[in-house]
């Protein structure tokens, strides 16, 4: 290693203050990074909660009537958002608190210094990844909402008939005449007398 050392310029109060500040920054490097990570962790936990609370619980009602491809897209986007949000939260937790593991005691002072800096570098890397995942999570959530709002609706091709006894029959309309409505239900024809019809409505699909 070709390191050359010579006497430097005379020190001043300003150069001394800068040197002390650099030492303080160095001593607090890991602590400051972990404070940043803890704040990001709080934000990510809130974001994941928003997704699971609003997206997953209400999601099933919101996607009824959307074409099947749109439903799959919404489900996939929400799942990806949860995965990204949880991954980002875990990374921010690791950046904030580290991860318990056994490690050899540093043998030299140089090792102390190097491992201290390595921990700060690892925390910075985790924090950057957590920030990226937070943005990705938000983008996926916005995408899921956009598909819910703007995806084409499935045509209302099914008829649901409720008779006076409350029995519900759902199928595709084959015809109507001779005082009856004819539906195809799972391939079989069902005739329902018009006089027995209590309620009739159109649906985009029939319940299983």
């Amino acid at each position, binding site marked *: *290693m*070709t*390191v*050359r*050392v*010579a*006497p*430097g*310029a*005379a*020190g001043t109060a300003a*150069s*001394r203050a*800068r*040197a*002390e500040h*650099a*030492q303080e*920054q*160095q001593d607090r*490097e890991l602590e*400051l*990074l972990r404070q*940043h990570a803890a704040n990001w962790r709080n934000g990510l936990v809130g974001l994941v909660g928003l997704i699971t609370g609003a997206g997953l619980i209400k999601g099933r009602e919101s996607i009824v009537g959307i074409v099947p491809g749109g439903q799959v897209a919404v489900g996939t986007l929400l799942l990806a958002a949860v995965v990204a949000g949880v991954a980002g939260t875990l990374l921010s937790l690791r950046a904030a608190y580290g991860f318990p593991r056994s490690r050899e005691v540093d043998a030299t*002072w*140089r090792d102390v*210094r*190097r491992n201290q*800096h390595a921990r*700060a*570098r690892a*925390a*910075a*890397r985790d*924090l*950057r990844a957590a*920030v990226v995942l937070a943005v990705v999570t938000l983008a996926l959530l916005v995408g899921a909402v956009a598909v819910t709002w703007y995806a084409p609706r499935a045509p209302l091709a099914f008829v649901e008939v409720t008779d006076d006894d409350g029995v519900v029959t759902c199928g595709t309309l084959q015809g109507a005449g001779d005082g009856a409505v004819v539906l195809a239900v799972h391939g079989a024809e069902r005739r329902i007398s018009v006089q027995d019809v209590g309620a009739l409505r159109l649906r985009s699909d029939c319940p299983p």
Partner: protein
Amino acid sequence: MSHGPEPYAVGNDPRWNERAAQSATVDLDPDEDDPMAIIVTGPCPRCTHESAHVEPLLLYSNLQDRLRSPGSDVLRLALEKAAGVSRRREVEVICACGTPHPSTPQGARGCGASWVLDVSWGAP
């Protein structure tokens, strides 16, 4: 009659720079290709007790600062090596010996002295 350690006093002296340039051991951590810190060890030119100082060249503080990670500047380092570029830094070393000195303020270490070294590495 022997006298104990000097009392703590913040100060610098150009003669200390010259004395320390002769006696200090200076290393780059992890290596001179992409150093993250300059490590200076050796006797304090004022109190003569052994002291160690780490001058950071790179710190991770927050994401708004431009961060350099090992290996990210491979192309820049290769070009600098090919061009025979040398790098230089003035390091103000603050005594951090473990010997107690009279009148040392709370939380402080060493005798209070500081000295400046001109450290360079790479192609001469």
